[in-house]
């Protein structure tokens, strides 16, 4: 059994969810004043991008690109493995960047005793 039958609806669902996540995250990252909230926004953007990338690689009726003993002889259609590999890399890199960013937030809090971006402006933009 494959993914649901109604492809048009699923197109809207997956692309729509991904784009909605990207937009919501970007909104948070650009409007919110708390540094942590900004980073939460950025990680939501990352999620959206990853979902978008994986859903681009989907193939109707395809199965995971793994030739395990049960499926190797059936020679089934397989979804595109390349976006999956890219997303794998992107997720790990996203986590690394988030961790560094949060460390910076902790450092900033040590100096300024606040995480509000309006109060941290020793440097002008």
């Amino acid at each position: 059994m494959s993914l649901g039958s109604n492809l048009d609806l699923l197109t809207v669902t997956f692309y729509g969810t991904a784009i909605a996540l990207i937009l919501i995250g970007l909104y948070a990252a650009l409007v919110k004043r708390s540094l942590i909230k900004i980073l939460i926004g950025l990680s939501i953007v990352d999620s959206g991008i990853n979902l978008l990338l994986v859903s681009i690689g989907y193939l109707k009726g395809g199965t995971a690109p793994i030739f395990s003993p049960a499926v190797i002889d059936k020679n089934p259609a397989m979804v595109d493995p390349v976006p999956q590999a890219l997303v794998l890399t992107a997720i790990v890199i996203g986590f690394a960047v988030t961790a560094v960013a949060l460390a910076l937030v902790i450092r900033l809090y040590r100096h300024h005793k606040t995480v509000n971006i309006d109060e941290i402006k020793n440097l002008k933009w």
Partner: protein
Amino acid sequence: MDILTISIIIMAILQIGAAIYAVIQKDLLYAVIATSVISLILSIFFYVLQAPDVALTEAAIGVALTTIVFVITIRNTERHEDKRHVKIGNKIIKK
């Protein structure tokens, strides 16, 4: 219109709801919990899209590690986005 399609749509709605919640919620801890819900559903989506590798990665990184990193930051800084809440010691009071 089978039940899988419907459930995927419902999960998508839940995910977007969690994202909006994460953005508008003033309490950062709740926002972080909401991001972990987002990752949870995202992981199921990857699974549905036949990407178990990615689902595994998302489950591993999104559910536990991102949460702990954010929670540590919240512990070291402030739990509330709003300025009217101030943390003194371990208590959160309203100014």
